[in-house]
């Protein structure tokens, strides 16, 4: 019995699974390839509610430029986007809509909780604010700040990209 990844020793005229399988480590590389493609072409759904929207706008514009990371184009339909950026405070009134928007997105999808209010309610511990959107939908990246500086937003985006790269893309 020969091991799979050893080259054939009999002249190469018959089919040799070991040699044939030598290139089968393609699956892992394909995963990385898909991860690379996905992380650099993120379509965001900016669910902007409050003040963090100002820093979101700043990050998206020329000074800080989120476009250099591939995440420039917002797609204002959840069906067409990958990343749900929940930017700003989520109140009890809009929480069901947030769930609706999340449910409408197709897999693979990621959620970024942008700002203190989306992460944990922020300074608004009251009767009308949801204390963090992770009570409603699963969150991948939390960007702290009130509002976070554009550099912090880009840091969060880079961490998201790292997460996407290291996630198993192809399910068996």
């Amino acid at each position: 019995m020969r091991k799979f990844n050893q080259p054939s020793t009999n002249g190469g005229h018959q089919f040799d699974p070991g040699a044939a399988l030598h290139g089968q480590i393609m699956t892992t590389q394909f995963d990385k390839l898909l991860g690379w493609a996905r992380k650099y072409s993120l379509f965001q759904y900016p669910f902007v509610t409050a003040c963090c929207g100002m820093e979101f706008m700043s990050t998206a514009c020329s000074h800080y430029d989120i476009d250099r990371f591939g995440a420039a184009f917002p797609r204002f339909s959840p069906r067409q986007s990958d990343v749900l950026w929940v930017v700003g405070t989520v109140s009890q009134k809009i929480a069901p809509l947030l769930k609706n928007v999340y449910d409408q997105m197709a897999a693979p999808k990621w959620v970024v909780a942008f700002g203190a209010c989306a992460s944990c309610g922020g300074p608004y511990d009251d009767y009308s604010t949801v204390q963090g959107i992770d009570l409603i939908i699963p969150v991948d990246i939390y960007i702290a700040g009130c509002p976070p500086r554009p550099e912090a937003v880009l840091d969060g985006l880079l961490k998201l990209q790292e997460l996407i790269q290291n996630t198993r893309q192809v399910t068996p």
Partner: protein
Amino acid sequence: MSDQKFPEHLAIEKKFPGSVFDWHAQHGDRTLIIDAARSFDILKFLHDDHGYNVLVDLTGVDYLPRKPRFEIVYHLMNLSTKARLRVKIQSDELHPEVASVTPLFPIANWLEREVWDMMGVKFSGHPDLKRLLLYEGFEGHPLRKDYPLQHRQPRIGPKDQ
């Protein structure tokens, strides 16, 4: 502060005797506390005859545990003379209905809805008194003093569930 009654106060006392319960001009803000029963007529009088054509703000204050508990505060402005006037109505918890001023000022529609939403004071004659800032299933009136800030309401789900 001078003890001189200001002209609007004198005019209202002349036309609606006994309707001004109290007045002051603290920090330069002329304030009148008037009878809730005749509030619409007095505000209409100020609007038509004294030129107070801008309703700057309409809000409620809860003075628990004082009785009467609620005070509805109208801030009026006369744009031509640049005069400001504050008119207050006191309303208690059992009969908190106050006459709506929507026919005089269109913005009162929303302002009164907000006072109803936050304080629970009803406005009679309002075309559509429903909640403005909070969702329909919300219980209680949060700006009242006996409503705790961190009270948690049950979360509402998506509409199709």
